């Protein structure tokens, strides 16, 4: 008998005669205390994200590439990693094309194996989009794709993220339902609620443990 068969047989034997417990999931409990008026969502998200050192900038459909460019300049970042095949990546490229004073863009357009050293040692900042956010917990939702891979939001020390205000949901339950998560999950789905941090030494909070030291969110007010 294999370990699998042994384990399952033992568990089944222990359940002999028992009936499975009915599913009485209490939807209200995970939604009602975590619901916000539409005009409150940005403020709620902002409050929670800023409490954990996230930098937030409000912008609009027309000016967000300018805001991004200015932030990159202000921080004196030597380059910015983008996802060139995405609509927002193209907007950034277009803006950069007419602003030669901005530092060079890098494109994540090949397998990580081909440029791992450069990604780790020479990629100070990145820019990605999000699938929305969760007001209740102050979390960005990310489903990395082929065009915008997983390591973009992890390895560079500064991460800029674009969030549409219209895609801020109340709570995680609502996100799962409205975006139909259970019907098909991607290779990797993420909730990101601030820059990387740790309190492992004397419970003193320190930012920039292993992931980004800075998380900068551009909230595009489209709602």
């Amino acid at each position, binding site marked *: 008998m294999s370990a699998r068969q042994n*384990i399952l047989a*033992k568990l089944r034997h222990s359940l002999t005669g028992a009936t499975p417990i009915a599913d009485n999931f209490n939807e209200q409990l995970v939604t009602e*205390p975590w619901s916000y008026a539409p005009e409150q969502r940005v403020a709620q998200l902002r409050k929670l994200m800023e409490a954990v050192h996230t930098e937030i900038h409000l912008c609009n459909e027309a000016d967000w590439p300018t805001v991004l460019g200015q932030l990159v300049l202000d921080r004196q970042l030597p380059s910015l990693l983008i996802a060139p095949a995405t609509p927002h990546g193209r907007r950034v490229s277009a803006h950069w094309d007419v602003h030669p004073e901005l530092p060079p863009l890098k494109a994540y357009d090949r397998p990580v194996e081909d440029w791992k050293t450069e990604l*780790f040692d020479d990629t100070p900042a990145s820019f990605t989009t999000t699938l929305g956010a969760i007001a209740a917990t102050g979390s960005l939702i990310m489903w990395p794709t082929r065009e915008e891979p*997983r390591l973009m939001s992890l390895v560079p020390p500064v991460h800029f993220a674009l969030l549409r205000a219209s895609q801020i949901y109340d709570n995680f339950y609502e996100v799962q339902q409205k975006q139909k998560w259970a019907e098909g999950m991607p290779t990797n789905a993420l909730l990101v609620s601030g820059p990387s941090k*740790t309190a492992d030494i*004397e419970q003193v909070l*320190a930012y920039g443990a292993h992931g980004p030291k800075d998380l900068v969110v551009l909230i595009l007010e489209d709602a």
Partner: protein
Amino acid sequence: MNTQARIPVIEVEEDFRERAHDALGDAQLRGNFRRAMDSLMTKRAVAFSDPEEREDLRTLGNAIRARALSKLPDLLEQLERNLIRNGVHVHWAETVDEANAIVLSIVETHEAKQVIKGKSMVSEEMEMNDFLGARGVECLEADMGEYIVQLDHEKPSHIIMPAIHKNAGQVGTLFHDKLGVEYTTDVDQLIQIGRRVLRKKFFEADIGVSGVNFAVAETGTLLLVENEGNGRMCTTVPPVHIAVTGIEKVVENLRDVVPLLSLLTRSALGIPITTYVNMISGPRKPHELDGPQEVHLVLLDNGRSQAFADSELRQTLNCIRCGACMNHCPVYTRIGGHAYGEVYPGPIGKIITPHMVGLAKVPDHPSASSLCGACGEVCPVKIPIPTLLRRLREENVKAPDAPNQVMRGQGSKYSRKERFIWNAWAQLNRSPALYRVFGFFATRLRSLVPAKVGPWTQNHSAPKPAARSLHEMAREHLAKQSAEKSGEQR
């Protein structure tokens, strides 16, 4: 500096009582734990500011875990099916040896030399670092706290905050001695040193290992929570990812994780959510540009099916490893995690460890509790820890020939003398005549009580019976009263 030398280390071959005694005498250790636990308790209380919401959520958390366990074998098979469909390799192990052998075979297939590991208590059960280390494979901890304790050849003293027993000065000394950096007590600087060292390791590692917080059967998803980003690094950068988890970690639906996640992070750290919630449903797809090419899941039993077999003890497996029970435990706070001598310390450790290593190996665990009830009161999934501790005490004094074999190592504290005394005591209390005779002699001969009566007199003075028993005095009193009454009537 010899500040580290005072910390009791798990390898020390002494029993729980000695380790606890040593820890109690260590002012530094006690201070470190007291401060940390006070702060964690306060944070939790603030995070659950609405008691009604908290209690409703705990009830739901308990129901979700109980439902998952009530169909555990089916859910494990569903999880396996969905993971395989997603391209994940699923392995099953009854013992830690089997689990280590599985990991080793994956390591050997890839000729891996360096393994980087995110926080995983199951890998601690397996002692994976030592196992791989002995076979020439470096297995390095990437969680800051775990990295610190590994560097000092220690074990975690708390399941959420592994290095909580150390202060910044001790970490500064450790980094100075082991990494050759300048001594500092600045926490930011210390973390940046760890970041630099470990970034290189993430980059180089051939295999990344992680634990699992919730395995979702419905979608075949492994959910990991963390704040540092080391978990994401371990599961994304190396070409191979191995997740190790206990068979009880499965939940039925993706929506089930919503309340459990909230209970977990609020109970553990008093925060609404961790920085990262990392949901992994498969390896890199052919067209994707990063992520591991191979993902493995090792499902470990290691005594869990034994706990599962008894419907009361099964509740032990509700645990979502938040650590709130230890943060609120008056015993844990005073003796720290190392005194327990096992992977899981504190109240949850006392009820789960006996299933993993046998009661005989940890005979004092169930009794190392004042049964104050704090652990059960704060448990986010309502494990009745005090009830289970009492149950384990019973199992531990069962006669060796008792008909019900509930757990390995049961009856390890059985003593014929003690059993005889209790039987005699029961007999004494059942027979009024016998009890009166006993009471008469116990009070008349009270000066014969020896000054030392076993362990009791280690910390207390010996009990001395009163000159007359309450029974006797009451009888005398009643007799006097009725005599007076009859006198009045006359």
